[in-house]
């Protein structure tokens, strides 16, 4: 692939020159946002401040009810005296006023009062009265104060409010805080009156010594947000250029002119790519400058010691760290532009690209994320975490370099994918169809297979959300039969595919069944082992595991039905979908090993939960492998059903699936190896493999 730097430089320079001459675009992309954004921020800040001030300064009206109303009033009086000792009426600090009301509930509903203080008397212990109750009270343990459960003898102030009204929520919250403070003061006074020599707060006083410097603290705050902000700038700034760069040129007819020159497609793409990166970085610099202006105008709060956190050396290092991010974003935007047939179409794709592009930038906000984890392999997310670490003064160089290389590699791969689009005749011709689209059949299905499975996944997730409260049998029927099998039928019909070939409905050689017999227990235990291993990198919360177990394995269903719905049906319909249609749609595009892995990964993704991904992907890959080797879906179906059945039996007989002896995993590995040896010896190759 030729890449001549003088050609690339000529193209790049010309692209930049043309762009910088587009005054209108520059004006509206750079200058006008500089004017409008502060207006937005000022407006937002002013509105919020005004609202908060209103809530702070308004006088909240409340009613007092309940058997302990007198105690409540006394408590409120004491609270007011504490807050504002000089005044007996509403003064600056104590902004509450009682309203007499016969029907406080109705008054609250109408909005004439903000909340109700209901005094509820102390409830005696069951079977205890009078002094016995008091004695019992003395002997009963103290409840955990944080949970605010009343002990026998204590009375309750219930603050009744309406959370759907801002003023009611605010007033009730302020009153609760004031009452809590009064209670604290009461306790201090009580202890003091009983001769307690120190204040309660002086008991086991905690002194916190934070070793982080102010610079590091500022760096942490900045490190969390900087990638998100920069990604937003780079995406929006780069999109202006990228979309016009291919889709726009196509509409103007200048793309054809360019394509007839001796510059190679890669050279053209690299030059456009550099142009997009340059403009994106320029816009980022300008917008970052704007942000500093906003900080100066106090429109944006910044952590203290922000300046100290960002030294010149840090700026240089950050620039270097963000270069592959800018390159990757530019590649993705150009790829989007190349996929589109027109400017308008490219614009439709931009919003999803923007939303998906911002997701990895949110990773630093998650607690407990370290660069020394699977995160280092996720482009953009790894840079975001690395930058956060750098700004807090933590330099894990091997991981930082690895993160940089992963993101840069992703950028290179995407650029190469983009170059393929410049070879497409669709860029030039008015015809929106080529021979594949016209003839249909398997070649067209191969082109569309990813779209089908992406859409099916989305539909499954949406529908699952609506039916999750239903009986699990009904859920499985809907998911497996209606959605998965329905999609299979649709695909077969739409592309006029032969079901026998597409779904590999061929009988395998007899010995294959022996292989399946070995594979079932081997695969099951191997999957368990893989799960344990995966748990090390992707630990699963116990609550999630328990919740999953309860929802998927309800005890109320007869066992034979559990076998039917959770073993047999998935064994049939999931196999038809993944080892049938998906495998068929990809088998001519990917080499066998890659095909097996990809089908496995997609199968794992379809199981949604993170903790299920690795073991199901592993099993899915094995099912795909046996289908390819035997040219038959039936072994995979049996294997799948039997594997699920083993899990159900294990649950029913309460056989633990964790903590197995290592020898079990070795044995399982051996059985799997034996199984695949049998499959290999009795193979019937899948036709048309790459």
């Amino acid at each position, binding site marked *: 692939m030729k890449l001549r730097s003088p050609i690339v430089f000529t193209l790049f320079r010309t692209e930049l020159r043309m762009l910088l001459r587009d005054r209108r675009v520059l004006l509206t992309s750079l200058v006008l946002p500089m004017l409008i954004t502060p207006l937005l921020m000022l407006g937002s800040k002013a509105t919020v401040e005004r609202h908060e001030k209103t809530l702070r300064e308004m006088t909240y009206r409340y009613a007092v009810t309940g058997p302990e109303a007198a105690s409540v009033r006394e408590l409120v009086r004491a609270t007011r005296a504490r807050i504002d000792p000089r005044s007996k009426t509403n003064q600056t600090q104590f902004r509450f006023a009682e309203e007499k009301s016969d029907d406080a509930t109705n008054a609250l509903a109408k909005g004439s009062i903000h909340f109700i203080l209901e005094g509820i008397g102390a409830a005696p212990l069951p079977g205890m009265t009078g002094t016995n109750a008091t004695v019992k009270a003395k002997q009963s343990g103290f409840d955990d104060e944080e949970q605010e459960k009343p002990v026998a003898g204590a009375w309750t102030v219930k603050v009744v409010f309406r959370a759907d009204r801002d003023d009611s929520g605010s007033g009730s919250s302020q009153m609760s805080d004031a009452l809590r403070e009064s209670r604290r003061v009461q306790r201090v006074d009580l202890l003091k009156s009983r001769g307690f020599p120190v204040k309660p707060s002086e008991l086991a006083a905690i002194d916190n010594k934070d070793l982080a410097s102010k610079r590091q603290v500022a760096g942490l705050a900045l490190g969390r947000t900087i990638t998100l902000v920069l990604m937003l700038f780079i995406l929006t700034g780069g999109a202006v250029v990228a979309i016009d760069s291919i889709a726009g040129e196509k509409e103007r007819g200048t793309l054809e002119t360019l394509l*007839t020159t001796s510059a190679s497609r890669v050279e053209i793409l690299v030059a456009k790519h550099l142009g997009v990166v340059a403009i994106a970085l320029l816009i980022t610099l300008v917008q970052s400058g704007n942000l500093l202006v906003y900080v100066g105008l106090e429109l944006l709060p910044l952590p203290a010691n922000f300046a100290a956190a960002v030294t010149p050396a840090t700026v240089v290092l950050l620039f270097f760290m963000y270069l592959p991010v800018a390159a990757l974003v530019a590649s993705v935007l150009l790829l989007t532009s190349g996929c589109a047939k027109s400017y308008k179409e490219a614009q439709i794709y931009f919003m999803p690209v923007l939303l998906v592009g911002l997701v990895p930038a949110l990773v630093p906000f998650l607690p407990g994320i370290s660069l020394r984890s699977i995160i280092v392999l996720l482009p953009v997310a790894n840079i975001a975490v690395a930058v956060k670490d750098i700004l807090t003064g933590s330099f894990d160089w091997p991981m930082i370099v690895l993160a940089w290389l992963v993101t840069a590699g992703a950028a290179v791969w995407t650029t190469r994918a983009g170059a393929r689009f410049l070879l497409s005749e669709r860029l030039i011709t008015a015809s929106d169809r080529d021979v594949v689209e*016209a003839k249909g059949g398997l070649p067209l299905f191969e082109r569309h297979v990813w779209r089908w499975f992406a859409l099916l996944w989305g539909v499954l997730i949406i529908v699952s959300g609506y039916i999750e409260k239903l009986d699990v049998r009904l859920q499985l029927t809907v998911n497996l039969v209606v959605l998965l099998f329905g999609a299979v039928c649709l695909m077969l019909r739409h592309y006029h595919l032969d079901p026998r070939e597409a779904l590999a409905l061929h009988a395998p050689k007899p010995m294959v069944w022996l292989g399946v017999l070995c594979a079932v227990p081997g695969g099951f235990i191997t999957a368990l082992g893989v799960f344990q291993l995966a748990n090390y990198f992707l630990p699963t919360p116990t609550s999630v595991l328990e919740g999953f177990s309860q929802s998927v394995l309800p005890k109320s269903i007869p066992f034979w039905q559990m076998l039917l719905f959770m073993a047999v049906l998935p064994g049939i319909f999931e196999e038809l979908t993944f080892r049938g249609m998906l495998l068929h749609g990809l088998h001519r595009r990917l080499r066998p090993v890659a095909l097996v892995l990809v089908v496995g990964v997609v199968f794992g993704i379809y199981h949604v939960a993170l903790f299920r991904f690795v073991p199901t992907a592993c099993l899915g890959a094995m099912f795909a492998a046996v289908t390819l080797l035997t040219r038959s879906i039936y072994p995979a179906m049996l294997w799948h059903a039997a594997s699920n059945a083993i899990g159900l039996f294990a649950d029913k007989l309460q056989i633990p699936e964790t903590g197995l002896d290592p020898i079990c995993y070795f044995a399982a590995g051996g059985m799997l190896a034996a199984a695949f040896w049998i499959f290999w010896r009795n193979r019937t190759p899948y036709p048309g493999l790459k």
Partner: protein
Amino acid sequence: MTAPVVVQNLAKTFYDESRGEVQAVDDVSFECRAGEIFGLLGANGAGKTTTLRILATILKPSAGSASVMGHDVLTDPEAVRASLGFSSSTTALYPRLTARETLDFFARINGCPKAQARERVARLIQRFGIEEYADARVDKLSQGMKQKVAIARTVVHDPPVLIFDEPTVGLDVLNALEMQKMIAEFRAEGKAIIFSTHIMSEAEKLCDRIAIIHRGKIHACDTLAGLRASTGQHYLEDIFVHVVQDSAPEAAPLAQGAATP
């Protein structure tokens, strides 16, 4: 010695939603020699533009082969484009570049070193008489001026082969004549020129040999004298009608509004 442009059994099929399979180019073969203007004459939708786009490596042939200066369009497209200057009504100019910058850009991108490019650009500006507006932006130029700049950028890297696809479309009489004069000059310089048009008088005036293309097939290919002799007609218009009508029973009816992509 092999001709600079050799096309053998070239075919191209498009698929359209409403019309189905469209054989835009069907078994086309011809050669274009150095110092010759080879004319491709045909009505709209005959397959001229598709053929030329295949030569320019923008489209891939469905069958057959084509080569420019010995380089195959499929296996060595960049070398083909380096030997080629392609100008079509669909190849637009960058509106925000000046004429000079446009020429300089296309010189450099086609491999001319900086100094050489500058010198060539200056020569071409003089030759084409575009000194007056050399530093004006392309979007400010009239149609005629734009066309001159377009021609200039086609030859700026001095390619041995030139392809002009309906270059005089939209030009007034004077500009069209000037265009023809320039193309004749290129021929005199020894370039192999493929010239496609549907204007008969142009083809008569300029072309050394003419191929009449209709419904994707070449139905006749000869000098003007040869065509006159074989058809018994004098004017190219009559020759064209005669050739096309002769081939009518073999061809499928023209689709309404047929226009190749």
